[in-house]
């Protein structure tokens, strides 16, 4: 295999003599550093928000403990609206707990949806909705433009950079008249192309990997090795696809300029047109109902339930006679009444909310199914899931918030209906928020993407290699 080594060395030297290669290398280093900084800054913002929420909660709980102790010892008798020993007060704004989405260890590589979905969701008796929680203030034009993060660099720009160094892989040799010379050597056409591909792929991959590694070490909180390895495999395969595509176009034997145009069109198709088509079809086939309707509908339900409040309460105590405090249903505390009304409203809105969420999920599933149409879609999905800023992790967060909200209501419900009072010790019994990351997170996020990309790359490489043997020689030799 001495011949191959010599060929690779030769090819590498040729590559280094090309000005475009140096421009591309500089662009990769510069943009990687920049984009990792952007991602790290976004992750830092999220970390700050999460910490601020935790601090606020801790301080508030310290205050509540004091107040509750004083109330219990009879030193303080706050108004019923302020009294934290009343479960209805504690379960709402005064005692609310935050469901927070912690920063993922690999988050600096992709901002994903993290600038849109608040990582801090207050959970209280009235409800908890990550997609409706308080939004961070941000210039909407910045949200629209999207960040220049590493995921954008990889999915959009890396293909263009790869094509810039490989669009004239063979055509240039022919135009310079060196191809005939090369083919007169005892090497097959396949081997020449394979060598050229390997050198270009190796150079770009090495640059991207080293630049990313260094940027993560310098600008972010360090490198999480497991996701980094999966990330490397995905980027390597995606890069392989594009360089393979360049080989395929070169194998058709046209001139360099034509190849460049053809590849630019292919880039357009895979990176812009197919994703846009998938997105438009998703919106068309699985429209998500507008939130506007939900807002108005909620008011409608509140009014109706309020009119039927007594009936709602009576029904509840009918089902749970053991909870009825002394006296009759008519004498029930107004807070119990308010709670019952709220629960009933939430119950009636649940189908609407469920509908909303299912529509969104159907949209996501449709997109996931169609992502196999373009390696860009596969890569984009895998990269943001690896970073923990994609639909899957936010979906898990949403489900976690739901679960925690149910626990929260479950804790207070019997205490409100029995009109009991909370003691300071009860603070330690309150449900506590935890978010469990999937243990096999990185592998789970990356595996399907890796398989898909493997298929894509094998396909283009296979076809281009066939082209080069099946009479291809005639097509592209002078």
């Amino acid at each position, binding site marked *: 295999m001495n011949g191959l080594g010599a060929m690779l060395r030769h090819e590498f030297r040729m590559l280094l003599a090309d000005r475009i290669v140096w421009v591309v290398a500089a662009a990769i280093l510069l943009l990687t550093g920049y984009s990792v900084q952007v991602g790290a800054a976004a992750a830092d913002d999220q970390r700050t928000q999460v910490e601020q929420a935790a601090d606020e909660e801790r301080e508030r709980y310290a205050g509540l403990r004091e107040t509750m102790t004083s109330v219990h010892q009879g030193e303080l008798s706050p108004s019923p609206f302020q009294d934290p020993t009343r479960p209805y007060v504690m379960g709402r704004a005064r005692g609310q707990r935050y469901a927070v989405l912690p920063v993922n260890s690999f988050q600096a590589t992709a901002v994903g949806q993290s600038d849109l979905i608040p990582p801090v969701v207050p959970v209280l008796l009235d409800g908890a909705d990550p997609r409706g929680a308080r939004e961070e203030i941000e210039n909407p034009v910045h949200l629209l433009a999207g960040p220049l993060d590493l995921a954008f660099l990889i999915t959009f720009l890396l293909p263009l950079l790869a094509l*810039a160094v490989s669009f004239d892989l063979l055509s240039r040799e022919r135009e310079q008249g060196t191809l005939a010379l090369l083919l007169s050597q005892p090497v097959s056409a396949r081997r020449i192309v394979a060598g050229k591909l390997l050198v270009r792929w190796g150079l770009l991959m090495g640059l991207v990997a080293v630049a990313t590694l260094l940027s993560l070490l310098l600008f972010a909180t360090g490198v999480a090795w497991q996701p980094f390895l999966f990330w490397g495999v995905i980027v390597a395969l995606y890069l392989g696809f594009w360089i393979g595509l360049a080989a395929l176009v070169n194998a058709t034997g046209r001139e360099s300029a034509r190849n460049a145009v053809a590849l630019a069109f292919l880039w357009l198709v895979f990176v812009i047109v197919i994703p846009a088509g998938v997105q438009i079809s998703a919106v068309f086939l699985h429209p998500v109902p507008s939130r506007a309707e939900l807002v108005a509908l909620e008011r409608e339900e509140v009014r109706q339930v309020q009119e039927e409040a007594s009936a709602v309460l009576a029904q509840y105590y009918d089902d749970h006679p053991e909870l009825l405090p002394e006296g009759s249903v008519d004498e029930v505390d107004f807070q119990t009444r308010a709670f019952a009304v709220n629960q009933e409203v939430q119950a009636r809105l649940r189908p609407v909310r469920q509908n909303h969420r299912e529509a969104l999920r159907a949209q996501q599933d449709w997109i996931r199914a169609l992502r196999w149409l373009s390696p860009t879609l596969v890569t984009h999905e895998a990269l943001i899931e690896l970073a923990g800023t994609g639909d899957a992790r936010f979906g898990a967060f949403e489900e976690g918030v739901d679960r925690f909200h149910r626990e929260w209501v479950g804790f207070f419900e019997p205490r409100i209906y029995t009109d009991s009072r909370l003691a300071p010790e009860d603070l330690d019994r309150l449900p506590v928020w935890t978010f469990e990351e999937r243990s096999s997170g990185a592998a789970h996020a990356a595996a399907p993407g890796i398989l898909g990309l493997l298929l894509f790359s094998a396909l283009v490489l296979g076809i281009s290699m066939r082209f080069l043997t099946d009479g291809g020689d005639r097509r592209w030799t002078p």
Partner: protein
Amino acid sequence: MFRHIIRKEVIETLRDGRFRWGAALVGLLLVLSLAAGFAQRAEVERAHEQAQAMSWSQWLDQGDKNPHSAAHYGIYVFRPVSSLSLVDRGVDSYVGATTWLEAHYQNPFEHRAIQDTPALARFADLTAATTLQLLVPLLILLLAFATFSGERERGTLRQVLSLGVNPRDLAVGKALGVSLALALLLVPAAALGALALMVAGPGGGAVADEGLRYFLLLLTYSAYFGVIVLLAVAVSALAPSSRTALALLLCFWIVNGLLAPRVASDVARSQVELPSSLEFQETVQRDRSEGFGEFPSQQVRQERLADSVLNAHGVEELADLPFNFAGLSLQRSEEFGDLVFDRRFGDLADRVEAQLEVHRRIGFLAPHLAVRSLSMSLTGTDPAHHQRYAEAAEEHRRLIQLIMNTDIMENSRFGESYVAGPELWSEVPEFEYDGPEVSWALAGQGTAIAAILFWLVLGGLLVRVGTSVSARRV
């Protein structure tokens, strides 16, 4: 002569496979994105109008209660959708759709549509505007990068010039030829857009002057494509080879369309800071309770108000006043709140606008930013149009408070319980919004317009330089 150059260029372009494929692709995308924009706009408009009507009838049917309770119940208003948003959705999905007009608080807009979308929507949200801003320029570059360099490489440039053709005429002819071929694609698309616009009808008064706005939008994009054509021809003339010309032009396209908008956000953010949501809420809260500048705290203000009213009417007790002091006190507290909101929300809006001005200035380096800003403004989908709507909604909120508090003042007694009914609720006029005229939209776009003109002149100059260099090289 001139005619011949143009004719040759048009025919050559039309016969070119690149043009056919590219035009088919871009044409398809334009039709698709216009259709998607049309459908989405219609759906959002329907949902918003329905929700607003529902909220209004809820206000009217809220039953008998104290006017201040009614003020707390309030009304939800939903942003109308500009009919031109079928061309450019701008930030429509990225700003809240609704705000709650309630007593005491100016609430921020809530429910950004983008939160209810999968991650893909961020990078694949194709609108007619993105097709025009990104893909058409790419098509132009791919068509025009070899106009000069190709002829030189084939040796035909020398022949043509030997015929005595003025190289400048050749350049202008080539630029016009490419433009004409392009027009065959874009004029029908513009007509289709106009048709869609007419079918869509005026969008709930979100903007005025829709026809004029659309015309100026066409003008803006024409100017932008003109810039790209000129640049492509100039680079083709200046570059030593077609290969270099293509590389340079693609570099420009990447920097202009893909990198500049993102980097500009970071630059704008570093120049003008926005408060965090938490900070903003705390500042508003603090201003309201503790006062600011010459205005003392809430408590002091209330005491002073009581003293001055008692003095003016020469009575000892609030109950002896000829009107209900509670109503006056509520109204004064509202008016003070209004000062705080004007100051804080105004400051926030100014900061957002200052950031956007940074984007427009970067338009002198990357024309895409200038065109994007102008396009969003003309279609009424930029933050400024949204802010104007937010201010109108806030005015309406204040009107509701005034009507409720005046009623309390005039029709109830201090310290006694009081309820009003539907007659009072219907005294509040239904919220109607009149969208701004085109002159209002353009007033903030001076920098963007200047940037586009600058690029037109620059493109022209480059073509001039390029042609003389190219002629000398031959």
